[in-house]
């Protein structure tokens, strides 16, 4: 089996969970990967300080799409305060595959959008660890 393109990664890429628009929504952000032109946006609906619902939209490679799709399932119901504390290892561990330095930005694009939407700060760095 391929190290990177495992079955569940390709499954999330081809059938991404929680993708689309969410209207109305309380929070949103749009992130780009300047390296490859990928675009990933997020709409978030909030209730009682928690993520009640969330949708990603945009286009990108298998790694960025699968990473956002897998993360979306974990982010449902999460406290906003907790979202603000999530780090890169959280997203990469969740993805469960070895991520090279160049693909790290792809793997973190979804979380960067979510953190930007929740904290209002889009400066979370996704460069080499």
């Amino acid at each position, binding site marked *: 089996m391929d190290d990177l393109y495992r079955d569940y990664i390709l499954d999330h890429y081809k059938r991404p969970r929680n993708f689309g628009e969410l209207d109305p929504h309380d929070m949103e952000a749009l992130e780009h990967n300047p390296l*490859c032109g990928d675009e990933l946006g997020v709409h978030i609906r909030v209730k009682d300080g928690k993520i009640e619902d969330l949708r990603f939209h945009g286009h990108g490679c298998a790694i960025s799409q699968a990473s956002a799709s897998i993360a979306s399932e974990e982010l449902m119901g999460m406290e906003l305060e907790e979202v603000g504390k999530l780090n890169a290892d959280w997203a990469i561990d969740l993805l469960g595959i070895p991520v090279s330095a160049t693909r790290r930005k792809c793997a973190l694009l979804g979380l960067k959008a979510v953190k930007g939407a929740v904290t209002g700060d889009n400066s979370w760095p996704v460069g080499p660890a």
Partner: protein
Amino acid sequence: MVVDTKNIHTPHPPTGLADNPGSDRVVRSADAQRLDVRSDFPILAREFDGLPLVYLDSGATAQKPKTVIDAVSKYMSERNANVHRGVYALAQESDAAYDGARKKVAAFVGWEPRTTIFTKNVTEAINLVAYAWGRANVGPSDVVLTTQMEHHANIVPWQVLCKERGAQLRYLEVDERGELSLEQLDQELAKGDVKLVAFTHVSNVLGTIVPVAEMTARIRAAGAISLVDGAQAIPHMPVDLSKLGADFYAWTGHKALGPTGIGVLHGRTEILGEMQPFLTGGDMIASVDFDGATWNELPYKFEAGTPPIAEAVGLGAAVDYLVELGMERVRAHERELTGYMLDRLQEVPGLRFVGPPEAENRGGLVSFTIKGMHAHDIAELTSRGGVCIRAGHHCAQPLMRCLGIGATARASVGVYNEASDVDALIDALQAGLKVFGL
């Protein structure tokens, strides 16, 4: 250097040549054009995971022949001294090496050394014009015209200039074939407000060869100035600037088999002579006192500080190498290879390429998409087969928006590529499709 005139046996002969039994003469002349110079490039002996390196990313940067590597090494080992300062023999040798490289580079494109300026890269060359010419000549009611197919390096400097001067930036459109329209250029020029037209010689995404001479003739007739970005043209086809009619022409060393860190700007004497310097400091002055300074003569007026001396020497060696191969042969070799690549890419399910469909109207690169597979993943998967291609927006985001795609994969050839490299690309793409279940 080996220039092989024998038939090179490949598993898939280029379509239209060996497949055509009635054209012996054509086959012979095509074979005579074919290059066999792979062994001149030491890096191509490398292997990755036991697979030979298949380098199809010359549009990003070219690999270097041993003659270039040796020239840089020899300069550093035997001739290193700063230029235009020392009176000792070593410094004189360094001067001769640096200005000798300029003479070679200028002669290579049919231009004068005095108006051939060494820069860091094409980006700096274009910025030089945008600052030193643009700030003095573009005003609030003026227009800078560029095209939708430009690299960011030929868009952003003009955006900044126009914003600063209150001028307008307009774009020539790219048609469905990936080409520009001379009629639209005429219409834009007829408005009478265009001061400068900046356009590429060969598109780094579409591969389109732009008809430079037809464009510059119209631009000059309209009283405007032309700037041509030759980054993707110079190492791939004969370029004679004395016939192209451009007022400024910029290109870069590292895509032309030379080192990184050196670019070239050719300009007309009368325009460069009127311009104020871009960067100021050492070497570009005639004299300095506490109240001011006067400027050195051309080209030194535009070369502030210690220049890239070893890089210039390396570029001089690269030019020697290309001259020895013959640029007509380089073009014929790459055109044939590009045609073969266009043919074979059509075997790949779901693949679509952008730009002109014929190799005749293209430089040596093909950008493509595959349905169900992002460009980044295409490049990752071809790399498993040792095949290096590029993926992304290729520093041409506005163009990608016009094309309605986020990213493409791009395979680009150089003098050292062979039909077997294209075969390896196709095999790697087919293997990649399997991984994705396509």
